[in-house]
């Protein structure tokens, strides 16, 4: 049965490598075509450790060294490759894949073209078996290969546990959010680049571990073993099993190996293919099967497994939102956000041309104006999504301009987007969970170092999320994918999400556009509650004048990138000249 054992051992090792691939490609969504490189780095590193640096018996250390080396490799590749231009990542990794083999052949310490031979067997301290080691258990004798298989299976189980811990943690959730829409993730104070890099590193490390195991399983590493075809094989495994599912990754590895091995028998004994064709045909059929899988089942056999959250029995009823009278004191004084002289040019066109605004707690300011008046651009400048050419913006004493979106968000300035932009492949409740701040579980290290703390934080986070969902009437939809709920519900979710983020300043970009008028009141209540109940400063861009009338304490009319007029809704909306202009009349108006 040496054959079966060998096959199973290799399968387990490959499964671990594919786990790593799943983290990078499936969870992290990075187009990655050089996976064999990480595997190879791991294999070589641990081989070098075992053959030259370490005394015998330190198998585990060597394997960990492999993981470490692969992680470092990933860091070196990822740091430049992921800066702002993830779309080139695939080509970078592909080129590296092409170089790797030649590089290894040319380097000295990798044993050059001969590779590294006589890598010691797996050994634990004093237990250093030779090839014929065996343990007689009366009924059957267990030899080294069996032990090796068990060890590798142990590692596979470990890797599965480790990866699923990652996937189903707040950290994994964040990574998926970044995969879906990194800009929004930044709008919620997360550093997308760091998230990407970290998951790449973890995935590579897992793969490196597999490489280390391979080195000690096969006792030899050579250049020809880590070429493009290996990457293709692992990729086939991942795609077949389902790149978004850890079970899929594991299963894909088993299935693909099973398939390739089965082909030997089918071609030789089954079909009696001409002898000298068999090797080529195995490759060909493998490739064709891969195409078929991609055509028939692009998402693989297993779908992404989404955590289903159960609604707590005793829900605190959301306090009834009472329509108090709006505070009518004129602006000025007590303001938390003040911006002025903002200027932004696109090409020749001045999108924002000296606009400014000032926001105060519990005050709702509405910006109106025709399309292209520069309303959204003002939001983009304030939230760091566009760099202002000139002007100033302060949150309290802190200047906002020139900061990255994530920083600004962390300072407490949150915004929504005109095109809703919720994380479509997160469930509704996950959208809320990700948005909430101060989650220790977002730090992958903490997941394993202080699991209790993470768990408790997650528990309270979950309770809070349910409250929010209740409050916005989304609790029924909690476990549905963001992409599966209706437009109005997505709009509502966007509000709920920004509320969950608990900012001090809220910038709402057309929060009610496209909303069924019958639902409108609900939206109005919530927005009003932001300001009045939660004492937040709210600024919204709005076209629907009914909404403006209803909500706004203060209205700013923008045109040509400037604020032409501002005042109470009645003042502004009552001003017929302004309104005529708003509707497209171009007769001069004194600002």
């Amino acid at each position, binding site marked *: *049965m*040496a*054959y*079966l054992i*060998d*096959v199973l051992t*290799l399968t387990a090792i490959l499964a671990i490598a594919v786990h790593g691939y799943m983290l990078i490609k499936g969870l992290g969504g990075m187009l990655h075509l050089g996976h064999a490189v990480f595997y190879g780095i791991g294999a070589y590193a641990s081989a070098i450790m075992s053959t030259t640096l370490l005394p015998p018996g330190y198998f585990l250390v060597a394997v960990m060294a492999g993981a470490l080396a692969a992680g470092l490799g990933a860091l070196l590749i990822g740091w430049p490759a992921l800066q702002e231009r993830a779309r080139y990542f695939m080509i970078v990794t592909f080129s590296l894949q092409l170089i790797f083999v*030649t590089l290894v*052949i*040319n380097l000295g310490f990798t044993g*050059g*073209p*001969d*590779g590294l*031979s006589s890598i010691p067997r797996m050994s634990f301290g004093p237990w250093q078996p030779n*090839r014929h080691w065996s343990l007689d258990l009366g009924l059957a004798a267990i030899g080294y290969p069996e032990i090796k298989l068990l060890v590798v299976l142990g590692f596979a189980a470990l890797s599965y546990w480790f990866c699923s811990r990652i996937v189903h943690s707040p950290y994994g959730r964040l990574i998926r959010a970044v995969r879906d829409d990194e800009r929004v993730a930044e709008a919620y104070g997360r550093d997308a680049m760091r998230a990407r890099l970290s998951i790449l590193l973890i995935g590579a490390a897992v793969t490196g571990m597999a490489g280390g195991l*391979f080195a000690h399983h*096969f*006792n*030899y590493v*050579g250049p*020809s*073993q880590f*070429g493009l*075809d290996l990457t293709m094989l692992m990729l086939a495994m991942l795609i077949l099993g389902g790149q978004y599912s850890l079970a899929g990754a594991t*299963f894909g590895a*088993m*299935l693909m*190996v*099973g*398939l390739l*091995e*089965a082909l*030997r*028998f*089918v071609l*030789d*004994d089954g079909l009696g293919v001409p*002898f*000298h064709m*068999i*090797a*080529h045909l*195995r*490759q060909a059929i493998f490739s064709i099967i891969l195409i078929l899988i991609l055509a028939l*089942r692009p*998402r693989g*056999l*297993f*779908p992404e497994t989404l955590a289903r959250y159960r609604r707590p029995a005793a829900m605190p009823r959301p306090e009834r939102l009472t329509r108090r009278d709006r505070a009518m004191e004129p602006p000025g004084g007590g303001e938390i956000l003040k911006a002025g002289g903002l200027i932004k040019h696109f090409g020749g066109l001045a999108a924002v041309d000296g606009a400014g605004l000032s926001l105060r707690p519990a005050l709702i300011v509405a910006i109106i104006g025709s399309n292209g008046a520069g309303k959204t651009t003002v939001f983009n400048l304030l939230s760091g999504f566009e760099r202002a050419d000139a002007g100033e913006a302060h949150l309290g004493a802190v200047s906002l301009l020139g900061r990255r979106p994530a920083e600004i968000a962390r300072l407490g300035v949150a915004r929504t987007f005109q095109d809703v932009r919720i994380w479509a492949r997160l469930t509704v409740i996950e959208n809320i969970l990700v948005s909430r701040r101060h989650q220790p579980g977002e730090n992958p290290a903490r997941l394993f170092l202080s699991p209790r703390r993470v768990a408790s934080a997650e528990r309270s986070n979950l309770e809070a999320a349910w409250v929010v969902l209740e409050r916005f009437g989304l609790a029924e939809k909690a476990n549905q994918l963001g992409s599966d709920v209706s437009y109005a519900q997505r709009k509502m979710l966007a509000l709920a999400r920004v509320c969950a983020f608990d900012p001090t300043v809220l910038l709402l970009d057309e929060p009610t556009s496209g909303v069924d008028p019958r639902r409108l009141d609900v939206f109005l209540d919530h927005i009003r509650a932001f300001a009045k109940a939660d004492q937040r400063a709210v600024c919204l861009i709005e076209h629907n004048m009914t909404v403006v009338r209803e909500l706004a304490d203060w209205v700013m009319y923008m045109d040509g990138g400037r604020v032409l007029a501002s005042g109470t809704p009645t003042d502004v909306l009552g001003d017929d000249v302004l309104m005529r202009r708003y509707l497209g009349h171009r007769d001069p108006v004194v600002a």
Partner: protein
Amino acid sequence: MTAQLFGLWRRAAVVGLMLGNLLLASPLPAAAAGDVRIGICQSTAQGPATFSTALWKGAELALADVNAHGGIGGHPLRPVPVDVGNNDPAQARLSLNKAIDLDKITSLVCWGTNVMVQNGPLIDDADILAFTTSSGTKVVKASKLTQQLEAVTSLYCKVAAAEIKRQYPAVKTFAVLYVNYEFGIELRDKCEEEFGKKGIRLVASEGHPNAPPDLRSQLTKLIDAKPDAIYLAPIGGGTVALGIRTARELGYKGLLTTYGAGDTPDIYTLKLAEDNFFYVSHATPPGAPEAVKTATEQYGGYTLMGYEYVWLVARLGNEVLKNGQKLSGNALVAQLRKDRDIQTPVNRYVFQDDGYTIRPLAIFTIEHGARKLQHVLSASDLE
């Protein structure tokens, strides 16, 4: 994506996996008991793929003969493919394990220095007789039961050097163009050594990837060193032809030479190879069976080895059985080394105990779209 659809797919997948593993586990292929299985390697790598075909064609002929004459002790011989993929040792081990475990092969012919070296212990454990057509000197050191069928690099270089001394006395310096793999590098080093003994100095050497886009820069550099001869050390797969063509086009008039890798049909038909070029390879003496000779002309020099491999296994097997032993790698190897000096229908071999083999080699040139035997160096000449 409805749940039951997924369920369906998963079930399909499970069945597939079961099927796969079942096939792995099942002794089904070994069912046709009685026949004697012999492993023959296959490769998809450029170069090896070519001569693996040749090897098989030769084996095919021998199998027909042998089985017509009762195989081994009345049991027919049956070939088993051993897929070494892209000459990848790990892939090779998997295939080899299958062949040993399920097909119960009694012998093997394979190549690729790393492939053989890394799987040497496996061969010994499995107690099978292995022949290698690799020229690597390390190969037989890794396994007691492995015998070199091919001449080793050092021998190739030695013969080439001698031939140059004899035929081209003017040559005082040479350069090597080698494939940047373990094998090419070994060939470079051995030739530097062997040529050196004959007072021919290595003046330059350049490496190239397997299947290079072109060799112009490498050869320009070599030719700048003004060597009297250039030794081509690729794995094969048309690189020899490319080397010859490029060298000539770059105006190199000197001697070009190579080893068995040049012994492929694409060289036979290469007009450019007809002047000032020779290679060292295995002879097909006039006495050899017609079928073998024609097949060799068609598929190249490795056809012989395929033929001789099967022939040898059959002979040894029958002897072993005659001595009342049962077929095993150890028995076969013992027999092989006991007989030591064996004359196959084609060649005379001296199988040494250290696994190396003294075998006749021949000097060939190309003429009128075919290889032309210059002269043969019999095993005894080389002893």
